């Protein structure tokens, strides 16, 4: 499979987020600078991670004349229920359960003022928030992957020649409804002409083991209960994404998988090529 289809407004790709909203996400996140009571919950880190990924995606597509729809975005939450968290407008041109990225750009829940260091000065910047932390009940990850497979299949029916959908699963790893590996295999078996659907996993753990980004072997994983399973569920990075990763200085090979443990997953969407990107912007 080539994974070489141009990503453009006429040939967009789909990014489907699966967000673990189970009760265990209330536990503290082990990868934060803060420790103990001061550490944020995994649910807080998940909300920050998803808001940040969506912001990055919008900014990749934003030009002075608006946001170009290189991406269709879907979001499924799993916890108390397994359900799509955004609903397209009735007239949406996208497949069911997806919205064009421009739709999200215009509709954050709110814009927060945050202070950032810019050229040595403190400046206020607007930070869009789409999701707040939520944590309740079990972790029906298998159901979520099953729903994701249906959603991905519907999208592929409408986009049989485009860059295949990318599913980004953000979780603490503990499925309570079966073995997610089988469901992950099924999801990854759906394909466009350009390649099979990609499943990337973002593991947010209470473990304080060092962060791991884009590992290529199980030996690199922390001794954490669910890291190996999530690593095995994750797709290898296709050639075009490996090439982009190498340009950013990552050491990657054919076995490198789209998996991060307690690390910023921004690179996973940054490696999708949509045009000339300043090498001095990260």
């Amino acid at each position, binding site marked *: 499979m080539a994974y070489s289809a*141009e990503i*453009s*407004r*006429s040939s967009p790709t789909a990014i489907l987020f699966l967000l673990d909203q189970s009760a265990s996400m209330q536990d503290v996140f082990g990868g934060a600078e803060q420790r103990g009571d001061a550490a944020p919950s995994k649910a807080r880190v998940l909300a920050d991670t998803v808001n940040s990924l969506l*912001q990055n995606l*919008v*900014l*990749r597509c*934003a*030009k*002075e*004349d608006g*946001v170009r729809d290189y991406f269709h975005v879907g979001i499924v939450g799993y916890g108390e229920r397994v359900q799509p968290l955004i609903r397209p407008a009735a007239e949406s041109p996208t497949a069911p359960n997806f919205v064009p990225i421009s739709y999200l*750009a215009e509709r*954050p829940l709110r*814009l927060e003022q945050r202070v*950032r260091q*810019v*050229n*040595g000065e403190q*400046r206020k*910047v*607007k930070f*869009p928030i789409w999701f707040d932390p939520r944590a309740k009940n079990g972790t029906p990850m298998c159901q979520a992957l099953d729903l994701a497979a249906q959603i991905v299949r519907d999208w592929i029916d409408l986009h049989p020649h485009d860059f295949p959908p990318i599913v980004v699963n953000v979780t603490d790893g503990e499925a309570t409804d079966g073995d997610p590996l089988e469901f992950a295999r099924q999801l990854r078996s759906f394909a466009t002409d350009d390649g099979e659907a990609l499943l990337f996993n973002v593991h947010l753990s209470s473990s304080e083991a060092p962060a791991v980004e884009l590992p290529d072997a199980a030996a690199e994983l922390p001794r954490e209960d669910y890291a190996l399973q999530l690593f095995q569920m994750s797709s290898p990075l296709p050639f075009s994404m490996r*090439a*982009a990763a190498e*340009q*950013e200085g990552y050491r990657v090979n054919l076995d490198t998988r789209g998996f991060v443990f307690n690390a910023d997953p921004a690179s996973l969407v940054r490696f999708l*090529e*949509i*045009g*000339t*990107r*300043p*090498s*001095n*912007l*990260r």
Partner: protein
Amino acid sequence: MPIKVHTFHVPKSGHTDDEYEDAFATSDPDRLPFRAAIADGATESAFSGGWARAWVAEYLKHGDLIESAAAARARWTPPADDRWYVEAKAAQGSHAAVLGVEISAAGTDSRPGHIDSRPGGSWRAESLGDCCLFLIRGGALRLSWPFTRADAFHNRPALLSSHASRDDSAGAAAMEAPVATEGTWHAGDAFMLTTDALAAWMLARREERDAWRSLLACADGPSADGPGEAPGDSAPDDRARGAFERFAAAARRGDDHPLSNDDTTAVIIRL
């Protein structure tokens, strides 16, 4: 022997003319030194077409990449826009690959006016990013600069930022330094400045003279069998433009190293 200049551009397929983000500029071809500049605004920055145009305009005045950048930055104010994503993009700065060339008369005999008394002289070029300069002499490609291989191009070149700071809000890394080169020219030489897609296409065919001669032929006007041929009685500029559009469309459809679907620009200078 006045300098003959031809400029060609087509937007990325599927994009409108308004979305074309390359830029080019040339000085008065009847006066030396003659200057030509080309720039390629980055897809992933906002206002990059405007920034590219700002730099090429300043290069004609200054003939120096860094001075032109400073002058362009001093004048650069993207329009205010309170949409959160436009504010964030503007804060990241605008970016473009840039290349300029200055063609001078020989030695101390440099003087304004025509150059027919001494057909030859010196040239100097500067570049930051992945635009390319070609020198064609005696029908052969004598120089390609700063890139010599088609596989050297990628999606993350160093680019000229509208922000002078090396440490802006986006966590920018240190800007790479521009590169410069120089040489001598003779009557009959042709220079070609191109943005990256066309440069990569050229370099994939550096041994296939017919392929890139078909590109140069766009500047030669209509011919009986060449791509310059155009129906009707349109003006020469229109015919040349039509020839280039047909050339680009055919090159994008090619099987072997097709022309990448990108804004595509060429400045051809015949001496």
